[in-house]
């Protein structure tokens, strides 16, 4: 066993211990702190594997961003105070059994796979690590499309998160609109309007992605124009389904109208 392996095992078991604690403790804030530690352990592992940039990003994004966000989430929902974060004992035992079986299966698979530890042809180069230059070239070169898609995804996430978490105005109607004949006609037109707006936007995005060379700016410039006004003017789409789930039998006409309504981004 090489020294690298030993250190990997050491750091890894620490990381694992932190993760287990994060999953096990009853206090959610404590769990989050243990989780943060576990993330740091992973960062160390990254560093050991020659991915120092990634280790940095891990700490920045995860420990700095995600854990903080989650702590905010816990604070916002004020649930941690009077209830434990974990379920009853029998549930935990069941969960443990399932995960242990899964683990056993994985270990079996790993141990039965030959040649994992034999030095590969590129091993020497690999252990030398990947430079930041190489990474940058890879990201903007061969993986350019993925990069672009990711940027779109982030944008969508942003919009989605805003829409979802936006607090409703007190004057805004909560239920779905009563569907009269007049309303139905109007809603149909509105329902038609939203795809008319959305479709070109989607088409443009796809076109932009398809051409790798296309400047990122163009995509970003186009998308907000089409989606943002809709968001600010209409009800949030995600609220609609939650309303639907409460009353089971929905008239077909009403359902059509609703989906038309829901189409409005």
């Amino acid at each position, binding site marked *: 066993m090489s020294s690298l392996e030993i250190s990997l095992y050491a750091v890894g078991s620490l990381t*694992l211990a932190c993760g287990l604690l994060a999953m096990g403790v009853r206090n959610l804030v404590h769990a989050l702190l243990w989780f943060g530690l576990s993330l740091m352990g992973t960062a160390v592992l990254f560093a050991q*594997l020659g991915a120092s940039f990634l280790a940095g990003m891990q700490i920045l994004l995860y420990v700095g961003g995600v854990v903080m966000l989650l702590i905010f989430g816990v604070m916002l929902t004020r649930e*941690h105070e009077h209830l434990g974060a974990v379920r009853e004992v029998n549930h935990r035992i069941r969960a443990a059994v399932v995960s242990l079986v899964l683990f056993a299966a994985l270990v079996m698979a790993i141990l039965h796979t030959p040649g994992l530890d034999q030095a590969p042809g590129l091993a020497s180069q690999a252990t030398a690590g*990947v430079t930041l230059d190489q990474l940058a070239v890879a990201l903007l070169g061969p*993986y350019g499309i993925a990069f672009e898609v*990711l940027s779109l995804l982030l944008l969508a996430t942003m919009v989605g998160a805003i829409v*979802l978490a936006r607090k409703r105005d007190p004057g805004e109607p909560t239920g779905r609109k009563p569907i009269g004949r007049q309303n139905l006609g109007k809603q149909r037109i509105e329902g038609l309007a939203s795809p008319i707006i959305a479709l070109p936007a989607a088409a443009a995005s796809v076109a932009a992605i398809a051409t790798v060379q296309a400047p990122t700016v163009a995509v970003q410039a186009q998308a907000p124009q089409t989606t943002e006004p809709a968001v600010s003017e209409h009800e949030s789409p995600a609220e609609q389904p939650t309303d639907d789930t409460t009353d089971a039998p929905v008239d077909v006409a009403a359902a059509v109208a609703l989906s038309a309504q829901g189409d409005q981004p």
Partner: protein
Amino acid sequence: MTAILLISSALFCAGVYGLLSQRHAVGVLIAIELMINAANLLLVGFGWRTGGAFGQSFALFTMAIAVAEVVVGLALILLMYRSRGDVQVDQATELAQ
């Protein structure tokens, strides 16, 4: 390499355990993150073994996606809290209706 695989799968299984045993929605989110981490570790590990930038590039992507996911997840948790008054995963059984 075996070490990385073992550590990664152990972390992943810890995540699975958390996913199944957590009651609080945020706890579930943590468990998912832990599993993503395990996957990330695997990506980096294989990238380290074969060389080249692909492992790290994809780990980076995954990270970004994970962050995005946390954001959406949190927004959903907020919404859930607003509409139901709690964030108990085991109480949310609307799917059955």
